[in-house]
């Protein structure tokens, strides 16, 4: 199941085109833009968690670095967004490198804690450095994106922009997974001991994928900031980091399509749950627990398992894939 043919990409493109031209409702476009941005976050984090097997509970900080960098550069200093984009991505990458160097030496829960600490510090910086970030009341006046005469002001145009970027990142991720580097990454996930013994410089590789996922998160932050044009620290708090992890795990780790599925569900779920009004959080929590209890390998793989199980009753699918 690892190697879905490019037919997946074609279906993806068709689905995006169809949705883009059939939908008229601005609200839906807005929602789908958020799904796209969350998909980017999940894709980047999935490379780190699903493939390299390293957890991060602080990725919202990179998301925030992307958003705040572009906000400050464009609104405060009058940069063009397209000049701010590389700055945002580079800054997030540089921070990821410096933070990752000591943090990725940790493993398991300790790594989770280290990244959690970093994420909280990021959030506190966004909130407290008010001369630069606007503090807890937020940052207003981020300009929308334009390329020459094309302005990405409408929901539809931004929808196409975001989902084109998503497609690009999906292709990059899949190329990465199926490469020398990707195999080495996956080998760390399965057995770091053997990976090192066969000559993989696991520390350097973990650091590189950490930087990659931070860069993707910063890209998502850039797209977010220029879409909503107003950002506040609450978007990048601990719960945001946890939500990113949840998207990856709920969708199914080590699967690009799982990340997409996870982002879809976790973005749309709160919208559906509005119907429950005050029971919203209760139901959300229950769904989260329920999915993990029933399908610990995530929805994508979990449903595939159920499907395959029904098709070939005799299969001994005791779960050799992610079974650790």
């Amino acid at each position, binding site marked *: 199941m690892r190697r879905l043919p490019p037919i997946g990409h074609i279906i993806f493109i068709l689905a995006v085109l169809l949705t883009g031209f059939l939908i008229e409702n601005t609200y839906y476009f807005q929602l789908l833009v958020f799904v796209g941005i969350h998909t980017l976050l999940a894709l980047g984090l999935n490379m780190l968690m699903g493939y390299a097997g390293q957890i991060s509970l602080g990725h919202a900080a990179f998301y925030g670095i992307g958003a705040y960098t572009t906000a400050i550069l464009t609104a405060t200093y009058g940069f063009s967004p397209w000049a701010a984009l590389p700055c945002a991505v580079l800054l997030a990458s540089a921070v990821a490198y410096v933070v990752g160097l000591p943090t990725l030496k940790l493993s398991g829960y300790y790594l989770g804690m280290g990244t959690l600490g970093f994420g909280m510090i990021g959030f506190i910086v966004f909130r407290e450095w008010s001369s630069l970030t606007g503090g807890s009341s937020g940052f207003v006046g981020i300009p929308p994106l334009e390329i020459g005469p094309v302005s990405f002001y409408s929901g539809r145009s931004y929808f196409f922009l975001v989902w084109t970027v998503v497609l690009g990142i999906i292709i*990059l991720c899949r*190329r*990465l997974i199926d*490469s*020398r*580097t*990707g*195999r*080495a990454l*996956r*080998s760390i*996930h*399965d*057995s770091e*001991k*053997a*990976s*090192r*013994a*066969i*000559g*993989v*410089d696991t520390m350097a590789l973990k650091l*590189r994928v950490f930087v*990659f996922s931070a860069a993707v998160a910063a890209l998502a932050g850039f797209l977010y900031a220029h879409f909503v044009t107003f950002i506040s620290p609450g978007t990048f708090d601990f719960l945001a980091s946890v939500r990113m992890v949840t998207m990856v795990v709920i969708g199914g780790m*080590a699967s690009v399509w799982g990340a997409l599925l996870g982002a879809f569900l976790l973005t749309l779920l709160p919208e559906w749950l509005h119907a429950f009004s005050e029971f919203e959080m209760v139901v959300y929590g229950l769904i989260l627990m329920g999915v993990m209890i029933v399908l610990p390998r995530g929805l994508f793989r979990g449903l595939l398992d159920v499907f395959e199980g029904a098709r070939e009753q005799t299969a001994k699918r005791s779960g*050799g*894939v*992610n*079974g*650790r």
Partner: protein
Amino acid sequence: MVDNPNGPLLAVQSVSKSFGGVQALSDITFDVDPGMVMGLIGPNGAGKTTLFNVVTGAYPADTGDIIFEGIRVPGRKIHQVVGLGVARTFQNVELFESMTVLENVMVGRHIRTRSGFWGAMTRLPGVLREEKEIRDRSLDLLSFVGLQDEAHRQSGDLPFGWQRLLEIARALASDPKLLLLDEPAAGLNAVETGQLGELLERIRDLGVTLMLVEHDMSLTMKVSDRIVVLDQGRMLAQGTPREVQSDEAVMAAYLGGGHASN
């Protein structure tokens, strides 16, 4: 294959290593000449696996030195030691279970290939060429150990004996000059052990020097040119299989002369 025909391929020089209060290795010295098969035997807890870990750079030695082709191993990272041409397998088979058989061997080529993050994303012609090279070489190695028909199976689904062969193929993929095998026959039946002995001969014919820890005495005595005997971290004897078999200290250790822990 032999770069310095006059010197040993590997020189272990008075290596000691302790964990807490336990002296795992004390003052071990021996040479491994190019092209030979060196057997390493001794009761459980004799320090054989520790010695492997020290030679491959997984643990630093407390004192002593390890010279591989005239280059000092201590102070180098494991992947650098693999780069020098030292590969190993594990006692409990450590495969990448979520990956296919072929991919496992392809990871083995990691240290001999170059393309990185950017290469993977851009897929320039050079990268694709290297990818094909990795694949071809890995398929060859699978044929070499007889697993060519299993290339696309999930490696975790292979029967245990084949997992051992796959692990050897993966180690060979790094073009080692010295291959350390940690109990390659453990868990194999008699037929498989026989095939393994034959495989080891063929690996030696490739010009790869072998060092193996093994409890199966008939296999060890058959394939080894020289044997080092360890007991409780000390070196008890070394010599040809015949010499070792008639060594009194070895007999004492193995036949219950005082402290056979086995």
